[in-house]
């Protein structure tokens, strides 16, 4: 099986969608969503059954366990995102559905290549392939001033950080005299200052992508303004891709030099956790709140990264999966409620438990998972990253992270309070589109199953990360 199998699949799907959009006229455009979803179902199935293995381009492209793990994650989350997008309303959206799905798929392709890239050039190109469609998608609702404004901010910050990253890459290349990552890793022996400088610039660039504090600033604005199903996907998939790339650049094959990164990433993790959680506190817009909480979660993943160990990396992978379900689920519930209540304000959730108890329970589960409460996925996620950090001796970071979960719980509980404690403003239940319900159910299942039986995924993550060190 060629290592490119899945990428080829995505490219083919893009062609099919493009064709359907071009040829099928209005009807075809309407069906692009369904086609994309179907195609993704096939691809997800393929990702779990086929074993694309090996490398190409002299090691520039590898399909190892990490890449396969990441690709399953990307495909799965994109599937949920696409399914959720199917219920997006409005003629405006329908007419441009082809573009929407095509952009989504091209970004997906970028991610998948990024996960396999072991060459700086390929990595950079894949990174941009992932990023550029996102700018367009963020401003997809081009008649809305907030959406285009958010797109511009996203774009500006994104390109500047791309530039910083590319600038850093130039030094990496200059010092290591190669663009192949194993070469770079070898060159780190002795820690030449220019190489370190270059890699830090790369870290800053990825900091933007994963939204670490203080590179996070585009996040709340973009999340608030862009359409929610897209945001749900944006909040997980590209971040996962960013982390996988970070593993490749900073950890893979670096050996003992790896401890160089530990204090820096730990510091970055600490400020990200603190900043994200604190800024989430005063938020009244649920999407904005989730945006900041997402930043805090990135901080926790960085804690796992800061452990610079196989288990730490594996725990980040686990965290990403848990986060996919919980965060996407939360955003989707927000979308459902906001569409019914016409507001994304916290007050839209008032009395949800008495209007639509199951939806409220689902949201509660997502929030608990995000808050890191036992018996749902998020608990294990947080526990594992903190545990990895403890193993690495970063007890202060563990304590800080654990204490700030308390701050995080404050704002999650504020939502829970709106849903459960406050009386409803209207009695009737919230309408729920079938595809949306399916997505929410999938997310709930993910959160609960991972919460009750984390072991298989932990093992898979450990296997995926085992080759990095």
């Amino acid at each position: 099986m060629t290592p490119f199998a899945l990428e080829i699949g995505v490219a083919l799907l893009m062609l099919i969608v493009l064709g359907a959009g071009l040829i099928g006229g209005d009807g075809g455009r309407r069906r692009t969503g369904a086609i994309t979803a179907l195609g993704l179902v096939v691809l997800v199935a393929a990702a779990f059954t086929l074993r694309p293995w090996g490398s190409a381009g002299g090691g520039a492209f590898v399909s190892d366990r990490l890449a396969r793990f990441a690709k399953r994650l990307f495909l799965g989350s994109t599937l949920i995102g696409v399914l959720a997008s199917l219920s997006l309303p409005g003629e405006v959206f329908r007419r441009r559905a082809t573009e929407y799905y095509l952009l989504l798929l091209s970004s997906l392709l970028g991610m998948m290549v990024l996960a396999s890239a072991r060459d700086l050039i390929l990595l950079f190109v894949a990174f941009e392939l992932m990023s550029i469609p996102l700018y367009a998608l963020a401003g997809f609702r081009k008649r809305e001033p907030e959406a285009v404004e958010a797109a511009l901010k996203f774009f500006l910050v994104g390109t500047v950080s791309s530039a910083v990253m590319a600038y850093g890459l130039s030094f990496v290349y200059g010092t290591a005299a190669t663009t192949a990552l194993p070469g770079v890793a070898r060159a780190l022996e002795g820690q030449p200052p220019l190489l370190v400088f270059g890699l830090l610039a790369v870290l800053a660039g990825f900091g933007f992508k994963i939204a670490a504090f203080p590179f996070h600033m585009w996040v709340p604005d973009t999340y608030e303004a862009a359409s929610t199903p897209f945001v749900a996907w944006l909040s997980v998939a590209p971040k996962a891709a960013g982390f996988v790339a970070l593993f490749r650049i900073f950890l893979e094959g670096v050996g003992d030099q790896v401890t160089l990164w530990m204090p820096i990433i730990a510091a970055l993790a600490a400020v990200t956790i603190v900043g994200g959680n604190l800024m989430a506190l005063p938020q009244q817009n649920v999407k904005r709140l989730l945006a900041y909480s997402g930043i805090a979660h990135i901080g926790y993943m960085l804690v796992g990264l800061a452990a610079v160990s196989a288990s730490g990396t594996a725990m980040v992978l686990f965290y990403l999966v848990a986060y996919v379900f919980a965060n996407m689920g939360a955003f989707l519930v927000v979308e459902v409620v906001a569409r019914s209540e016409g507001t994304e304000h916290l007050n839209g959730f008032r009395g949800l438990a008495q209007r639509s108890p199951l939806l409220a329970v689902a949201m509660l589960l997502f929030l608990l998972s995000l808050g890191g409460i036992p018996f749902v996925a998020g608990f294990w996620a947080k526990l594992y990253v903190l545990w990895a950090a403890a193993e690495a001796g970063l007890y202060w970071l563990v304590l800080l992270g654990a204490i700030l979960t308390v701050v995080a719980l404050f704002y999650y509980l504020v939502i829970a309070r709106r849903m459960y404690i406050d009386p409803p403003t209207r009695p009737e239940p919230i309408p729920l589109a079938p595809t949306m319900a399916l997505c929410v159910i999938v997310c709930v299942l993910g959160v609960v199953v991972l919460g009750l039986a984390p072991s298989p995924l932990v093992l898979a993550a450990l296997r995926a990360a085992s080759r990095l060190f």
Partner: protein
Amino acid sequence: MGLRMYVLLAAAVFAIGLFGVTTRRNAVGILLGIELMLNAVNINFVAFARYNASVAGMVFALFTIAITVAEIAVGLAIVIAIFRVRKTVDADHLDLLKG
């Protein structure tokens, strides 16, 4: 002229670009700043390619140029979209979303 001068030149260009990005009011001006920053990267790559005697840097520079074009295209499109709804491309006025 050694490698050092090229790198310094690139750094200067990069800094000028960044300065432009952070200070220009007009969105198009900001795009130009970004263009400068990416070109600084290209200078570096080419210089390093020469210094390292490997072709990879050149290739990288080519890719960077292509990507720059794509980015700027998307950027301009967004700027036009903004101009349509807001009738301004002044970056200072674009603060509907904050906090």
